[in-house]
């Protein structure tokens, strides 16, 4: 007899792939209902101004146009609430679903046109005349604050975090290193734009929204509240989702508009965003300026860090509220021992697109700043950039390590890690010493080549809970019903692997249901690299419970003891001895409804994967172009359920990290007009820009906080890319500390070399 099949830790093929490869995906734009109307949003062409009038008569006269809404039509709907890190001081800055009296960024929804089809809706939107009196704009978050409205300014609050006595440390320090650093505005920009389709079932009195993603239950509850409905009378449905990255699946004005319109007009309402809209209306991210200083001893050991920064949040506080600056403040110390630390993060409103999270939010930013600081300390003390890191790393023996800081409602306690070991492994893969030798020779020969190292701690597995139900259906199929969501990362496969191994069935027989609010009462969704950790452990718990139930029921049917039985490949067998077996399907039919189990995993702490990136670059002295010649990523994820999918996450994150380091930036002119509104202006990496990547996924530090030792893998590919490339470029052009701002565009790099 063969034993139960092991799935955890194996790179089995994805269950998701076949429909996606054969054109059978069901993305938002693929969903249509008979008699639907199309919504087109009219957006502000002005970055800041007072709405004097909106004339929709010409639009309404166009055949096929059904209605036009302006702010007055939706004035009863409250602004969109915060999902994470909400602060009272931020509440007056929330966004209404259509502009009320003022506009504050180019792209802000001012009217909504409803028409019989997309082409007519777009024609009509062009005919809506919006008369706006321009007001002065604020575009620099680090400059003096200005007015947001008659009563409020553009700095609603300052995030403060600290541990240790920073003032005393700096007073006593003999050496202080100070930097002024900036991270550019960029975002997730998935290839599928946003979309939402709402319809109202009058007979059942249920409002449905299709095209949901990421956090369907929270969005369901919020939409219900905003529209004054009971939450049971609103249901959200997630289909295929064309990339998440933080930006997707938050509640945006358009989601609420289609829902409100479906209720009002009793027609299905479909809205699909175009690319220009996406680039000016969906969440931006990342833009911050840091004035940071470190107090150090003569050996380069950090005594204290003082981190003051200005977070450019754009025009309104959206669902993420203070999440990004809060994470920036809390996660900046990273893998290093920092005895005294203080962060002061100024949240600033500007007349640009509002912001939210983007993969490794607050960490892409803070890692860039911290690692630049470490390089500066190395230069100050006159020691090697690798050695300065070694000297400051938190030791394995110090784990678990309490940072003395909070974020996302949790205390930050690094659960496990051997940072020095991973650094050694990464250096070995790239052959650091030989690489240094090669680079030296090439520099002598006139080439501008260099290498950089960056280290980081990620966070993942945010609780507080996840719930899973596992059912054996009468046909033998296994259903795992979860409240998480899939944004394309392979959730169905990974959860099926955990369920299949625990229960004793084939993973291909496990169907994972996610993102359907009518299938499970509560769920936390997919963000913060939480799904494999939280839902994975909830699945293991529920599948264990189901296994016990099944064995008990089978023991009665098979007239033996449960401890004599096992489940192997979906059959109940006698353990260790031949004999009659019973398929789970048969048992399910014998005990109708009996093969179902539910469990919840709760966790008050996040789990902390960590990693090392090493970049080797070549700079073209004439053009300022940067070619990444080699790239190494070492990442410890505790336990990889499906190593190939983990590597896929890392490789994808790297590409996005390179985008933010070298290419991608939302630029504005002095009037607040966005300049990056097509893929010809907003440049994302293609296959040509991606270097050969060597990856090492390690399992040296399983998390003690869940039995499988899982940590999330979604964000470590992106986190330190800006930092590693900046360090490599410094090295290549021979100017320590040259790079102070991301992205490092060819123009900026040429200027650095000219000034150098």
């Amino acid at each position, binding site marked *: 007899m063969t034993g139960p099949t092991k799935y955890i830790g194996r790179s089995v093929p994805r269950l998701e792939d076949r429909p996606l490869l054969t054109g059978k995906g069901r993305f938002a734009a693929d969903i249509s209902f008979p008699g639907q109307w199309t919504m087109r949003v009219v957006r502000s062409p002005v970055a800041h101004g007072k709405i004097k009038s909106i004339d929709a008569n010409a639009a309404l006269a166009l055949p096929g146009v059904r209605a036009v809404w302006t702010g007055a039509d939706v004035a009863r709907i409250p602004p969109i609430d915060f999902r994470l890190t909400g602060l009272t001081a931020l509440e007056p800055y929330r966004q209404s679903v259509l502009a009320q009296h003022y506009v504050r960024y180019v792209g802000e929804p001012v009217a909504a046109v409803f028409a019989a089809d997309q082409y007519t809706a777009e024609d009509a939107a062009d005919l809506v005349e919006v008369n706006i009196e321009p007001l002065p704009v604020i575009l620099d978050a680090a400059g003096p604050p200005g007015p947001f409205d008659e009563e409020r300014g553009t700095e609603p609050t300052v995030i403060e975090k600290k541990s240790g006595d920073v003032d005393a440390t700096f007073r006593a320090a003999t050496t202080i290193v100070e930097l002024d650093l900036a991270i550019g505005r960029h975002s997730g920009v998935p290839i599928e734009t946003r979309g939402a389709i709402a319809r109202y079932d009058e007979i059942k009195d249920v409002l449905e929204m299709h095209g949901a993603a990421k956090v369907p239950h929270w969005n369901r509850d919020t939409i219900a509240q905003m529209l004054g409905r009971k939450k049971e009378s609103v249901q959200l449905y997630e289909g295929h989702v064309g*990339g998440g990255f933080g930006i997707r699946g938050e509640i945006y004005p358009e989601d609420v508009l289609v829902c409100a319109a479906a209720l009002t007009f009793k027609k299905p309402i479909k809205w699909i965003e175009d690319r220009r809209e996406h680039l000016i209306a969906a969440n931006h991210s990342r833009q911050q300026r840091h004035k940071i200083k470190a107090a150090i001893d003569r050996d380069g050991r950090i005594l204290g860090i003082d981190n003051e920064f200005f977070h450019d949040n754009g025009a309104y506080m959206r669902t993420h509220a203070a999440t990004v600056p809060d994470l920036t403040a809390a996660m900046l110390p990273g893998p290093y021992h920092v005895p005294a630390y203080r962060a002061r993060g100024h949240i600033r409103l500007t007349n640009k697109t509002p912001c939210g999270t983007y993969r490794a939010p607050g960490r892409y930013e803070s890692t860039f700043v911290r690692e630049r600081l470490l390089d500066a300390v190395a230069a100050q003390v006159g020691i090697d950039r690798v050695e300065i890191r070694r000297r400051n790393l938190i030791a394995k023996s110090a784990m678990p390590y309490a940072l003395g800081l909070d974020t996302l409602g949790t205390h930050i306690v690094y659960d496990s890690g051997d940072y020095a070991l991973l650094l050694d492994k990464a250096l070995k893969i790239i052959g650091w010493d030989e690489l240094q030798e090669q680079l030296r020779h090439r520099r002598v020969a006139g080439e501008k080549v260099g290498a950089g190292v960056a280290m980081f701690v990620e966070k993942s597995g945010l609780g507080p809970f996840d719930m899973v139900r596992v059912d054996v259906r009468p046909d033998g199929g296994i259903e795992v019903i979860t409240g998480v969501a899939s944004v394309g990362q392979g959730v169905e496969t990974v959860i099926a692997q955990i369920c299949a191994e625990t229960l004793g069935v084939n993973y291909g027989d496990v169907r994972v249901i996610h993102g359907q609010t009518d299938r499970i009462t509560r769920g936390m969704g997919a963000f913060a690299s939480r799904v494999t950790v939280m839902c994975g452990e909830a699945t293991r718990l529920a599948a264990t419970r189901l296994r016990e139930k099944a064995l008990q029921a089978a023991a009665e049917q098979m007239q033996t003891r449960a401890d004599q039985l096992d489940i192997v490949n979906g059959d109940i067998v006698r353990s260790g001895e031949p004999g009659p077996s019973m398929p789970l399907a048969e048992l399910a039919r014998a005990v109708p409804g009996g093969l179902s189990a539910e469990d919840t995993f709760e966790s008050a702490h996040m789990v902390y994967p960590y990693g090392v990136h090493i970049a080797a670059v070549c700079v073209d002295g004439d053009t300022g172009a940067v070619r990444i010649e080699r790239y190494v990523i070492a990442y410890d994820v505790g336990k990889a359920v499906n190593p190939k999918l983990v590597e896929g996450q890392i490789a994808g994150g790297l590409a996005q990290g390179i985008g933010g380091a070298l290419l991608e930036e939302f630029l504005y002119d002095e009037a607040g007009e966005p300049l990056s509104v097509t*893929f010809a202006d907003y440049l994302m990496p293609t296959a040509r820009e991606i270097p050969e990547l060597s990856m090492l996924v390690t399992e040296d530090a399983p998390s003690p906080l869940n039995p499988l030792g899982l940590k999330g893998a979604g964000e470590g590919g992106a986190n330190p890319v800006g930092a590693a490339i900046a360090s490599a470029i410094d090295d290549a052009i021979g100017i320590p500390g040259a790079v102070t701002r991301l992205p490092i565009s060819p123009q900026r790099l040429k200027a650095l070399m000219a000034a150098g």
Partner: protein
Amino acid sequence: MTGKTAITLTINGREHAIVVEPRRTLADAIREDCGQTGTHIGCEHGVCGACTVLVDGEPVRSCLMFAVQAAGKQIRTVEGLADGDVLHPMQQAFMDHHGLQCGFCTPGFLMLAVGVLEREPDIKDEDLLDVLSSNLCRCTGYQNIVKAVRAAAKTMRRQ
């Protein structure tokens, strides 16, 4: 803009008689008028390549072509790649090499790669990379897409 034209689009060998405005893009016609939603629209200005289909064997950005221009031509989309339950070698290679995550850009990459390899089966790796860099993917970081296409090229040459 209201004048409509009756045309026939031949998609994967099947004829679709439709009536469209002259300005209607091929992408919209394939998706909305012919119901073949496997072809995706990512930018509508010809940069991302998600809407790539084959028109008379050539990869075309269907968002940049009008439906009326494709009348009478042979259009192939992702729905026509597999032979029943048997995946095309390109589809199989994407599955084997984890060349897709969210899958939104995938139909465009599949059609681009199939179109190029049918025309130029012995294309050099460097040239293939140039071709693949004409489409955007935001999930995979491209490495596995490149691996998959190279593997499929070998299989296609053998067949």
